[in-house]
């Protein structure tokens, strides 16, 4: 199978215009879209300018501006590529950060006044991060696969990495991947609290730069294997030639000033593209315009590209678009692909006095044609130090990407559950379902953590740090390249509400700078990677009640494709007062409500290649025999592996998940079924608990194999773990 991946379609919604051509023309001319915000009242904010997309039409209830922009961009990309979900297996990957926070803020303001209003409560959970993927699935799907992820400001770039993994594994024929993020009061207040915004439109690389400017928008790319695109007669825009992602494990908001992690990622991405710094003709920088970003990024570029950097133009599109957070990585990836395709460099608008300390070659003010752009680098760095580097290349190049073989034998080497059951290691997870644990029991992560080092961690991050540390300890200890994927269904709802209520009560200047980073969906991942010093790929996934399963699937992919040799997958779900009130309002009159009490839980499972486990001399707890995920109609039961000889069990997150009828059609129908919710209480992270329990039951000799089946509305996951 060819490992060349082509970009065959692009879609953009940016403050400069709706559509690729509208954005591109103004981008090259050097137009800037940063102006006073009109979307909401900015009274009391230190800075109130941003890049805003005009005329976003929200089609119906259940839609957010974020989802509406995503639909427009994804549709444009799919139309350009000419892909048809009815004729091919098409995947969708959505990166984001704020989801429907703008819409939720309006409800929060009402909730503040009327805490028990049912209408408001029910609406509170209408716009989780997953809602964008779900709306796109309804509008443009059905998609064969769907992943929602967040790594703050590198989310959109990581969406492309996930898409590449699916294509290289042959899971799908094409992927629509990108990111979308709408402006909201919470983000503006938070960035203002951090003092990170320039009162003027931001000036990346300028010696007078004082901060970034926020923006909003959506960018989506269609990626395909070159051979299938060629078979369709499609002309490629560019090749997604290489990529690399990793974590700085340094600080929740500040980049590591030495730029070493970023330098190693740029070098790795270029090398994996089968290219060298001599082939790189352009860099689209992260270039936020903050005092700290640019020196770090310049050092990293110099470290990776060496003396070649002296001839490579570097620019930042944020001076024109603002920083659209979860969308930025995808929008800028699309721009970088266009730079390669059109051999035209886009500028850093407003760059009048380049900072000489940076030592970079610029494209000031307006774009210009280039004689050739053989390859171009796009950087995206997120809160918590989650960095991603993409390399786009001329699809007619005569070099081949350097990619290792996909790992086929994956294993589990550690597991942990932390919650009302206490802190359980791998074997103990096996006995979790043997008895009922009071879901209301106090869960105290602080007893397991170093107080001073953990002082910035909120409850979710604390729960996660305890579970991840234990799972890694059982797996033979942490080492730096370890990756981390943690899931959460709704993110930090209570924290976001408290943050906004302070602003409603006391004004924007009371926004807490320390609390703001904890409101990003990837915050627990960032905190845990910093606390434990994990430098591998890291991001958050979300998939409603099957969020834990989505993290596990994602970790398997990162390991199989060689992004990391070892990845911890898990879920972190602290109890949420608001989620509980919403559920109480939703189920007040329903007879189907099981009344299972919700509880704090974090669970983690360590996955790696069998070869890596053997190299380390680690104990193999279980082998991953099969891992399936699907959307829509349901598990094609014929795909599910038959239990081998020996004892077999089915582990379910919850009893009423609809697994019964599905299981009845599988060879697992007569196996004993164990239900996690009955043992530890209800939580959206139960999928990760079920996986830890399955690993623990095999590790402790209770069973020889286990099927973990996770189902939620319109989505499902099946994982088979076995002793061999």
């Amino acid at each position, binding site marked *: 199978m060819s490992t060349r991946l082509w970009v065959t379609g692009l879609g953009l919604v940016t403050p400069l215009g709706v559509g690729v051509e509208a954005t591109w023309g103004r981008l090259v001319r050097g137009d800037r879209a940063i102006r006073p915000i009109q979307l909401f009242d900015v009274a009391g904010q230190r800075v109130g300018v941003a890049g805003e997309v005009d005329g976003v039409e929200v089609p119906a209830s259940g839609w957010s501006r974020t989802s509406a922009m995503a639909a427009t961009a994804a549709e444009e990309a799919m139309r350009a590529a000419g892909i048809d979900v009815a004729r091919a297996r098409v995947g969708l990957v959505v990166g984001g950060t704020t989801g429907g926070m703008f819409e939720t803020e309006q409800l929060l303001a009402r909730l503040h006044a009327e805490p028990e209003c049912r209408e408001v409560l029910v609406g509170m959970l209408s716009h989780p991060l997953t809602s964008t993927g779900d709306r796109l699935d309804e509008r443009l799907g059905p998609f064969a696969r769907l992943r929602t992820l967040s790594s703050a400001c590198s989310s959109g770039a990581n969406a492309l990495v996930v898409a590449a993994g699916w294509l290289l594994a042959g899971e799908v024929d094409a992927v629509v991947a990108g990111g979308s993020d709408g402006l909201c009061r919470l983000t503006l207040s938070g960035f203002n*609290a951090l*003092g990170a915004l320039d009162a003027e439109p931001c000036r990346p690389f300028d010696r007078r730069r004082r901060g970034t400017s926020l923006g909003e928008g959506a960018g989506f790319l269609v990626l395909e294997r070159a051979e299938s695109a060629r078979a369709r007669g499609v002309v490629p825009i560019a090749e997604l030639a290489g990529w690399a992602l990793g974590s700085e494990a340094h*600080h*929740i908001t*500040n980049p590591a000033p030495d730029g070493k992690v970023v330098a190693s990622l740029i070098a790795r991405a270029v090398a994996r593209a089968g290219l060298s710094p001599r082939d790189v003709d352009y860099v689209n920088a992260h270039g936020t315009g903050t005092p700290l970003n640019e020196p770090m990024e310049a050092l990293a570029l110099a470290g990776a590209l060496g003396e070649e950097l002296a001839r490579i133009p570097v620019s930042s599109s944020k001076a024109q678009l603002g920083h659209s957070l979860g969308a930025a990585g995808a929008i800028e990836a699309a721009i970088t692909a266009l730079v390669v395709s059109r051999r035209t460099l886009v500028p850093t608008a407003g760059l009048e006095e380049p900072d000489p300390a940076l030592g970079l070659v610029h494209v000031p003010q307006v774009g210009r044609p280039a004689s050739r752009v053989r390859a171009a680098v796009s950087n995206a760095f997120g809160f918590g130090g989650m960095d991603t580097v993409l390399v786009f290349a001329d699809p007619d190049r005569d070099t081949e990407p350097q990619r290792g073989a996909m790992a086929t034998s994956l294993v589990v080497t550690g597991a942990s559950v932390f919650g009302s059951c206490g802190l359980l290691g791998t074997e103990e997870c096996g006995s979790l379902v043997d008895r009922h644990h009071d879901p209301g029991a106090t869960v105290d992560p602080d007893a397991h953590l170093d107080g001073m080092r953990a002082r910035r961690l909120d409850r979710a991050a604390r729960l996660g740090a305890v579970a991840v540390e234990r799972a890694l300890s059982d797996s033979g200890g942490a080492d730096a390249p370890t990756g981390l994927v943690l899931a959460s269904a709704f993110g930090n709802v209570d924290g976001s509400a408290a943050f906004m209520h302070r602003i409603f009560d*006391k004004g924007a200047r009371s926004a807490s*700078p*320390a609390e703001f*980073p904890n409101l990003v969906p990837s915050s627990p991942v960032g905190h845990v990677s910093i606390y434990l010093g994990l430098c591998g790929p890291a991001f958050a996934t979300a998939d409603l009640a099957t969020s834990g399963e989505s993290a596990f699937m994602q970790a398997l992919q990162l390991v199989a494709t060689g992004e990391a040799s070892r990845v911890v997958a898990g879920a972190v779900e602290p109890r949420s007062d608001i989620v509980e009130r919403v559920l109480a309002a939703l189920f007040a009159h329903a007879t189907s409500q099981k009344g299972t009490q919700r509880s704090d839980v974090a669970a983690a499972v360590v996955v790696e290649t069998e070869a890596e486990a053997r190299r380390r001399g680690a104990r193999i707890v279980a082998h991953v025999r099969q891992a399936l995920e699907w959307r829509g109609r349901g598990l094609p039961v014929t795909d599910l592996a038959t239990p081998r000889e020996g004892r077999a069990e089915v582990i379910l997150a919850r009893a009423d998940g609809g697994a019964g009828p599905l299981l009845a059609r599988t060879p697992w129908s007569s196996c004993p079924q164990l239900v996690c919710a009955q043992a530890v209480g209800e939580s959206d992270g139960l999928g990760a608990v079920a996986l830890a329990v399955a690993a623990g039951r095999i590790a402790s000799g209770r069973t020889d194999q286990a099927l973990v089946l996770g189902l939620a509305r319109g989505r499902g996951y099946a994982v088979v773990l076995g002793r061999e």
Partner: protein
Amino acid sequence: MSPAQLRAELKRLIVTELNLKGRDPASIEDDAPLFGTGLGLDSLDALQLAMSIEEQLHVRIPEGEEARVIFGSVRAIADYLARVQAG
């Protein structure tokens, strides 16, 4: 509030707002550097502390280089607050 009371109040604020669990506010020395090598605080802590001081003691800490000097030690902050309040 006497200068000593103000310094004690600032120490309490530092411990609670920056979540320095288990740290006795009285153990923070008046002249010890707060950032870098001293108490080990960083720029994010400085922002949080500035926000809390503005909210609870009603004095706005200037941003940028000026803040770096004011946040040198508990005594430096207290002196700045006293100067501002004296008007």
